[in-house]
């Protein structure tokens, strides 16, 4: 296992290097010049050159890239072109916020998706299965931002109350900090829950038809043991794969949910940075996202071995 992990990490290095090249180059290909954006409507001839030089943007792009890589090697992601705040410091503040939102959303997706999927699979075509499948289609069809807007606005119009709360820092009130994520994370997790429910149901239905499950029934085991111990463990292997992919999906969905609920996470930071062409921030965030996705996929692969004893690395 250890050598497998090391091998995977070694393989990840070239991927990361290619990713750094992509995240460094692509933002610079977006039309629009950060220096002119900063000078807004009135740029005086020499101002443009002066500011470009001050920001180090007048040097050849490969020289800027090498400097950036060198800085990353020293744990420095640079500073925002606009606010001059260190990117790493800002990300250290924001990453836990998005991580908390994403993890709770993932938890919601699992806690809803797998149990409902199991219930639907053990009583196929029954009333519960019908409602579960309908709810899943609804969950997949209605975008999270629509649900978020309705949940925020309608109670305010009807009763003069809104569940929208102001963001509270962990250091001020840890309980409120966690509680404030419940509603946005639930909304964010709904679509994932629906996908997981449908996949769990489908996989479990298939596994329940297999011989070893029939044997388990023939041995007179209780339904709970047959389903949860023998069948579910095999049925959830593809679900784990999907969970890995859901991380990227939830990270994407977090952008709009953070926007609507005013959560100061990475999503808002990234959108603002793209609009402002704040290259160091865009580069820093994307690099971290790439790292997270590489590590998540590695973790998913390792979880396979835990779930299925036949898999060995």
């Amino acid at each position, binding site marked *: 296992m250890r050598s497998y992990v090391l091998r995977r990490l070694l393989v990840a290095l070239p991927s990361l290097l290619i990713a750094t090249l992509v995240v460094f180059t692509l933002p610079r290909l977006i*039309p629009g010049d950060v220096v002119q954006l900063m000078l807004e409507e009135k740029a005086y001839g020499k101002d443009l050159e002066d500011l470009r030089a001050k920001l180090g943007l007048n040097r050849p792009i490969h020289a800027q890239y090498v400097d950036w890589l060198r800085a990353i090697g020293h744990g420095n992601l640079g500073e925002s072109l606009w606010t001059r705040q260190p990117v790493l410091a800002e990300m250290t503040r924001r990453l836990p916020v998005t991580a908390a939102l994403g993890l709770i959303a993932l938890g919601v997706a699992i806690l809803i998706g797998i149990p409902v999927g199991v219930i639907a699979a053990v009583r196929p075509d029954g009333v519960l299965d019908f409602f579960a499948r309908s709810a899943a289609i609804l969950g997949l069809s209605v975008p999270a931002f629509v649900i978020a807007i309705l949940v*925020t*606005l309608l109670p305010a*119009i009807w009763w003069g109350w809104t569940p929208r709360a102001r963001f509270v820092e962990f250091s001020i009130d840890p309980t409120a900090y966690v509680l404030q994520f419940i509603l946005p994370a639930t909304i964010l997790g709904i679509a994932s829950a629906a996908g997981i429910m449908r996949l769990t149901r489908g996989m479990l239905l298939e596994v329940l038809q297999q011989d070893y499950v029939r044997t388990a029934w023939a041995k007179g085991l209780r339904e709970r043991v047959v389903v949860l111990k023998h069948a579910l463990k095999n049925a959830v292997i593809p679900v784990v794969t999907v969970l890995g992919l859901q991380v990227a999906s939830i990270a994407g969905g977090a952008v709009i949910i953070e*926007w609507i609920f*005013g959560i100061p996470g990475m999503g808002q930071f990234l959108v603002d940075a793209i*609009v402002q062409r704040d290259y160091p921030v865009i580069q820093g965030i994307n690099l971290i996202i790439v790292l997270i996705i590489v590590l998540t996929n590695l973790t998913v692969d390792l979880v396979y071995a835990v779930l299925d004893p036949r898999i060995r690395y």
Partner: protein
Amino acid sequence: MSPINSIDMSLTRRELLKAGALAVAAVPAVGPVAAIAQTPKRGGTLRLTFQADPLHFDPHQTLSFVTMVPLSFAYSRLVKVKAGPSVKPMTYPVEPDLAESWTQSSDTTYLFKLRKGVRWHNKPPVNGRELTADDVKYTYERFLTITGNPNKPVLEYIDRVEAIDKYTVKFTLKEPNAWFLDLLASTSTWIIAKECVEKYGDLKKVESVVGTGPWMLERWEPNVKLVYTRNPNYFVPGLPYADGVDVLIDKDPASRLATWLSGKTDFGPEYQHAVRWLDAPVAKQRKPGMQTAEYTWFTSGSTGFKLANPPFNDVRVRRALSRSSNLAELYEALAFSQGHWTPNPAVPAAFAEWSIPIDQLGPEGRKLYDFNTAEAKRLLAEAGHPNGFKTTVEAPATVYGPDFDDFVQITLKNWKAAGIDADLKLKEYGAFITSTIFGKFDSMFLGLRGAWADPEAYFYRWFMPGQPLNVWGVNDPRLTEMIKLQRRTFDVAKRRQIVFDIQRYLADQALFGVDGSIRILSAWDAHIKNYMPNNGFDYGGRLMAAWIDK
């Protein structure tokens, strides 16, 4: 040497009460403003939402409202636009702020006497020292010399600033500019402390916000809120009334509306505390005591085209373009306006004293505002386009919101009905404002205008040869002469006539596409007293004398 102004800004309670009572008479469009003056109460926190996070806090590195509005609570200027219930929205009278008085000894020389005993906020690195003429001199020198100050046109005609003594500052201009005092009251001219620049390198960091204004910026939680506390040493005795201001940053319009309807904020959810007309019935239902003021916004649509190239080098084509624009249909459709709007000549109608009434334009100019597709077609045929023509129009994608998208679609539909078939090319916002508005477009563009708080900017920056925003390529000697003349004309009535003549000429030549501005409905809760909104970024100045009746 003729004294122009020597108003004592120390407002007594009686004066404030009088001002409040005057407002009832002065502003007919205002809703249920308390008719009976009440004794102001100290304390409480004003709570409002704001649509964006500050980019940074350096007023000499941006002209954006997202920086200037947050700074308005903490900084002061030499002179400012008067605020409060006595000021009718859409008028912008100038009054002293840090200056106690001023005199003008010649067309190009101004002497400002500063208030004595004004203290900086008691925060490091300035630590509450007294403000002096050197601070004023330092501010304007930085303003004019720092690399990349987009506000430079506001004061670029200043030759030098001198500190004559501790409380006297002399401004010498390169050339006469009758708008000087109005421009000095702009919300980019905050007086800053040298120590902050020296300590932090610039003023971008939140710690560098140390001013002499009514509130002190206590903290900024990015994307969450700005928290201000009362400046106990503010130079106007008794003000501000509120102990604090919480500016909640909320980028989502539905969330902002919900926050306000649920009583978590005291002011309407949009820019300048507006509530969209579409949401007004719900707001009135949920907030029966809500106070409102209806007035015309600075912001409007803007249509740009290349004058040098066919077909827009033909005045008949330009007239056809305006005649085919159905402004009434447009402003009926938008959620923000729902039929509440005002047509704009070259100077937006929000400048009530400087914008020419449409009925005072010349005959050709007046016709531009008379929607008539058949007449537009006739003009095009006369110009050699009997079957209309095809063109391209650039517009920014998404960033201005759904109302702007509707504005673009309805405009294109009406142009097409007259034969102007414009192919829409959406540009990402960053690309749009760094290229299109500087003239890098093929034929036409649609955008917004309204960032400038002085009326002259709307014709000087757009139609004066050599100005970067003269994207039309206008170089008309008669127009240029009129623009120069009004700058030299200190008599306000005479200057207004010249500015009206400029607007008549621009309309007659159809040098711009007609547009309108929304009559917005600013709203504030029943318990907020002594407040009146207006156009411009000076939220802090307008809220200074507001108090909370709870």
